[in-house]
């Protein structure tokens, strides 16, 4: 329900859940404009209200005024005083000046720079180009400060986080479906893929099939056509390229596992899409039911 002023707000509850789960928290979206950066900014705002200095970065480019593809306005990323940030040198705001702390991997937008805001500022953020450098960037941010590391993520580029102790929040909303049921189904499918369990030798079948690279539809059909008493292992959940009913059949049909699992802890919802506006309350409840995860609307202050 929409909260009263006396209870913990949805952004506060999500922040507590996320920071209790891990030192670094990445937000990914089921589609463009699914509310990813809004969720990211809500977490950052809660930290600011509590006086907790955070570190922020991005997998991909975020915080720009308008979407690079569809020119829709996008939330900017505001850095409070004391915020640590990792971003390409080309995106460092010229004013107010930041303290430049160090430099890292090269990207198309320049070297990755580690900096600290002295006065509040607003900027675009983007992250390093490779999984290895992303991991190194997060580790550096952890070393530079004591607070949470918040990462504005991309669902197809979080392989770098697999096997780590980072928490993942899945943002979903009307951008990924015209109805509450459709959005919930997409969220459930996404969460099911991202929560493929890690390997557990005590529970695996005698026959273990390792899938190198992506597990695609043809792989899935071949696996389903064979014996079902097998354990299928992929490197990490992002390698699973099958969706919807075929993925559901695969998951039900074989013991599907990964070498490096992800730690998905919650969902957020955004009722506003380009083609549909959904009921915030219905959406947050449907997504919670479909995914089995704590679900929040940080703008409507709803939780389920």
């Amino acid at each position, binding site marked *: 329900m929409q909260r009263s002023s006396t209870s913990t707000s949805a952004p506060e509850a999500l922040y507590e859940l996320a920071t209790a789960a891990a030192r670094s928290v990445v937000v990914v979206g089921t589609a463009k404009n699914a509310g990813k950066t809004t969720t990211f900014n809500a977490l950052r705002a809660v930290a600011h209200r509590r006086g907790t200095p955070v570190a922020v970065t991005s997998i991909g480019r975020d915080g720009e005024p308008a979407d690079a593809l569809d020119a829709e306005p996008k939330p900017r990323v505001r850095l409070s005083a004391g915020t640590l940030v990792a971003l390409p040198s080309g995106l460092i705001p010229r*004013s107010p000046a930041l303290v430049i702390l160090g430099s890292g991997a090269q990207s198309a937008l320049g070297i990755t720079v580690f900096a600290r805001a002295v006065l509040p500022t607003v900027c675009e953020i983007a992250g390093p180009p490779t999984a290895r450098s992303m991991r190194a960037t997060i580790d550096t941010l952890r070393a530079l400060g004591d607070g949470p590391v918040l990462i504005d993520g991309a669902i197809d580029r979080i392989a770098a986080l697999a096997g780590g102790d980072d928490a993942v929040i899945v943002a979903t909303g009307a951008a990924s479906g015209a109805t509450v049921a459709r959005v919930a189904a997409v969220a459930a499918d996404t969460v099911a893929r991202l929560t493929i369990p890690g390997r557990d030798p005590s529970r695996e079948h005698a026959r273990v099939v390792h899938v190198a690279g992506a597990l695609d539809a043809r792989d899935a059909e071949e696996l389903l056509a064979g014996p079902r008493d097998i354990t299928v292992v992929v490197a990490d959940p992002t390698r699973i390229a099958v969706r919807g009913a075929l993925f559901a059949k695969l998951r039900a049909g074989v013991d599907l596992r990964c070498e490096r699992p992800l730690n998905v802890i919650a969902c957020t919802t955004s009722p506003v899409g380009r083609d549909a506006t959904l009921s*915030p309350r219905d959406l947050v409840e449907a997504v919670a039911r479909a995914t089995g995860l704590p679900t929040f609307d940080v703008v409507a202050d709803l939780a389920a």
Partner: protein
Amino acid sequence: MNRTRVDVDAMSAERIGLTWLRAAVTPLGAFGRRHDESIAPYGPGDEDRARAEIAEVVALAERMDADGVLRVRAALRAVPEPTPIVARARAGDALTDVDFYELGRFVDALDALARAWDAAEHDDAVATRRPPVLEGLRAVLAPGRDGATFYLADAFAPGLSAAREALSAAEAEYEARRETIAARVRDAIGIDPVGDEFVVLRDVYDGPLPDDVLVVRETPTYRAASIRIVAPARDAALTALAEEEEAARRALAERVVREADAVIAATRALGALDRLLARVAFKQRWDGCVPSFASDRIAFADATFAPLAEALAAHGRRYTPLSLDLHGVAVLTGPNMGGKSAALSTVGFLSACVALGVPPPAREASLPLVETIMWIGGEGPEDRTRLLSSYAAEVVRARDTLAAASPCALVLVDEFARTTGPREGRALLVAFVEALRARGAFALVATHFDGVAEAASAPHLRIAGLRGALPRAIAPGDFEAALDAINAAMDYRVVEARDANAASDALAIARLLGLDDALVERARSLHDLE
């Protein structure tokens, strides 16, 4: 004599170890590689410069400890590149805080390099090579540096502090106003707007929204709203600070420009030092000498063909140093596996060393600087792509070699014409040696043909060869034991040949390497009949 390069084709570079040598003496840092690429190999007329560089390398190698050289080279590799930043500053481009940070890293890296230099054991004679430190640039950046970090600190411009205080106050006022509005939202609607945007469900609250809250979207079930604060004081403070910061950066960039010459000079010094230390490390690894330069001979004592020595060491084997005295053109004969090809390679390798300013790995050496080094024998990759047979490839290389042969050329010939009929092949080789002599080139010509040197009136050198009989019995397939036996029995010295015979000990070596005894005996009886 002004020169731009020494001609060595790819196959020759491979055979004489030039490719290996270039890799071995490549500087570790970007400055050193750039400096190295700007220096042409030494050729005829460059003797004084070549001797001076090699002498400095030898002196440093003897006065610095090897571990210290390694540490200084590692520090050189870590020095960041300031040149593009300085160039942009000189051109009047605005510099960024990341640029100032990188310049600070450069200053720090120079300090670390100087410390590494000081920590290396050396005597005062090499103090002039101490890496530079940039006190001027350090002083320029100092107000913004706290350890390795950089901040456009208030001290860089008189107006910065006030502008920042003004913005800070405006931000605090903005935050207070925002919190006042958020409190009104909490009181009126019962929700907590953590960010600037929030949603009000109509079944929770459908009344008027507080002042300064704008509706940005309405639907039958909710209203999306946003806290909007018009804050001209904050906007003005932001603009004022941006102007102050840009002015501070411009002033700082101008001060960097005043240090630009020192920065560029430092990068050049680092480049030269990196090249020098690459050669010092080579000398410390392979030893070497300051050669004397002579125009009429190539002579060396106890020389090491380092690529082969390294390969042998990897297999636990020892390289036997080689001595040779070559005047003009000489023919080299000797047993199989006696080191004829290695002798040719050594001559080329030592010539390549001096051309690159590297101490030739020999106890002593006297040789000229040459314009061209050419290898004939076998095929190179380019020959295979031209679909030439082995013989045709050699003939084409011989043709090209003669066209370029001069007193400034070194020609290394490894069994030319061995793949054609022996009578015609020998005749061709004799004529080729005569042609090389006529052109005044330096050449060492290895062959198994008899009587070539005498027929061409050229000096005849030979590998001393087997000291005695090889053991007859080596376990079949024990290749290592066979090599050990050959190594123990072989005298690798190059000596003056006393007769025209080019004995190759081929049958004894074939037996030792496991060729059927009966077959070898049959070959020996046939040979003795001839």
